[in-house]
């Protein structure tokens, strides 16, 4: 096939069917923008938010108020050498009393004088290296029977709930993305098929003068691919701009909210954009190919 013929036919078809071309590009744009936002925010953002939240998962080992220095040192040494512990911070009498004052200052100021420094149990704030709820719980429980330990506080129920919710959200998002992509493919397919239908007479003439099916099909496929690329390009631009807006809001207006944790890295964004472009190209090409099948049956 001559390249000038291909370029001319494709260009003429795109211009001649400009309304359908715009409709197809818009469908690709809207579908892929929604896909891109879902991937960035729902997958990468959610993942990163949970990674950050998981990183905050910790447990507290409370020592008896009358625990000896040796008992405290033994626990400290044990935590320090444990490979399952990432960081550990010891709340001594001063730090514990300071925390007690800070909490009760806001909630029950009349209680501040009820206890004195040294009457509160000191504690170890432990951040495990593996944030998995079951692993942390097991690690936390291993300190309960140790001498001098008063109690171990681990929010296992909350961790389990949040991690369970994360799994469910990911599953729902995955199903949503699949449904969205399926809907996009169908919409794009319908748009391209309408374009092909509007040129059925041309196809009929081409067949009767002896054009091969691939000769007829290639300009349609190139047209579909161009529409897919343009649609994906606009979608990538929109998604990029929305991402910039989101990130700037994350460091501004909702800096302290949970939403600010829904962020993604540059490489994750690049991956999402490459996938969007690939989907645009594939959907355009496959949609055109399938659309022409009906008219090119022998």
């Amino acid at each position, binding site marked *: 096939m*001559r390249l000038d013929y291909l370029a001319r036919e494709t260009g003429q078809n795109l211009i001649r069917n400009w309304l359908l071309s715009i409709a197809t590009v818009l469908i690709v744009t809207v579908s892929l923008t929604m896909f891109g936002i879902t991937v960035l925010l729902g997958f990468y953002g959610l993942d990163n938010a949970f990674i950050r939240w998981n990183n905050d998962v910790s447990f507290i080992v409370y020592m008896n108020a009358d625990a000896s220095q040796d008992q405290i040192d033994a626990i400290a040494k044990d935590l320090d050498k444990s490979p399952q512990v990432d960081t550990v911070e010891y709340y001594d009498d001063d730090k514990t009393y300071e925390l007690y004052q800070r909490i009760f200052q806001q909630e029950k100021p009349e209680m501040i004088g009820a206890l004195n420094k040294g009457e509160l149990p000191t504690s170890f704030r432990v951040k495990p290296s593996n944030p998995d709820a079951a692993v942390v719980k097991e690690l936390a429980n291993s300190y309960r029977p140790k001498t001098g330990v008063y109690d171990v506080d681990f929010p296992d129920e909350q961790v389990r709930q949040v991690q369970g919710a994360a799994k469910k959200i990911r599953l729902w998002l995955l199903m949503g993305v699949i449904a969205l992509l399926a809907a996009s493919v169908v919409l794009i397919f319908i748009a391209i098929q309408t374009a092909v239908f509007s040129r059925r007479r041309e196809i009929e003439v081409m067949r009767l*003068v*002896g*054009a*091969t*099916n691939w*000769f007829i099909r290639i300009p349609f496929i190139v047209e579909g691919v161009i529409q897919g690329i343009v649609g994906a390009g606009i979608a990538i631009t929109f998604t990029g701009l929305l991402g910039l807006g989101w990130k700037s809001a994350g460091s501004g207006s909702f800096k302290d909210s949970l939403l600010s944790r829904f962020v993604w890295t540059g490489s994750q964004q690049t991956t999402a954009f490459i996938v969007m472009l690939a989907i645009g190209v594939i959907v355009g090409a496959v949609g055109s190919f399938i659309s022409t099948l009906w008219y090119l049956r022998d």
Partner: protein
Amino acid sequence: MIKLENVKKVYKNDHVALRNASVSIDKGEFVFLVGPSGSGKSTFIRLLNREELPTEGKVWVAGKDISSIPNWRVPLLRRNIGYIFQDFKLLPNKTVEENVAFALEAIGRPRQSVKTQVPAILELVGLAHKAKNRPDELSGGEQQRVSIARAFVNRPLILLADEPTGNLDPNTTIGIMKLLDRINRTGTTVVMATHDRGIVDVMRRRVIELEGGQIVRDQARGVYE
């Protein structure tokens, strides 16, 4: 050039369009297919172009049994067959020369060949001065001339015409028939389905009459009857 051997064509709705049709057409013949509507004329023509496959029997075109050739070779077969339609089937958004060039481009002819062949064929059909016009700017007769130019630009061995004068007035019809006759004199086999008694009777060429899907008459230098 063309041979049908005991051809039967039954459509999906069990309608028998052609039955026990056996006929042979030599190179350079001009053949009229006549008969009432639904007699099988269009089916006959569509079988020659492999638009339809016979239910039974064999169809030979240019020495090949076209009912058994693989689908991928059908385009190559069609490059040897020009097709003229009653409704012209011109592409409305292309000019006259683009419509004709389209037939050459669609089979991958080089640009230089397109550039020389298109003006030559437009000259032959008397439409060189309308090369830049679009079909809707032409009369019915002129549109059919473009259709003939497109069918003949590739110099096919066979020209199939399905009621090519069906939409034309008598004067225009004469012009189209003169053109087809001229093409036939170049050695191209012409098979034309028609209802036009006048042209059949005037031209006195071979007539194959179909009725209810059967060949009821095959007469050299025949009339419509």
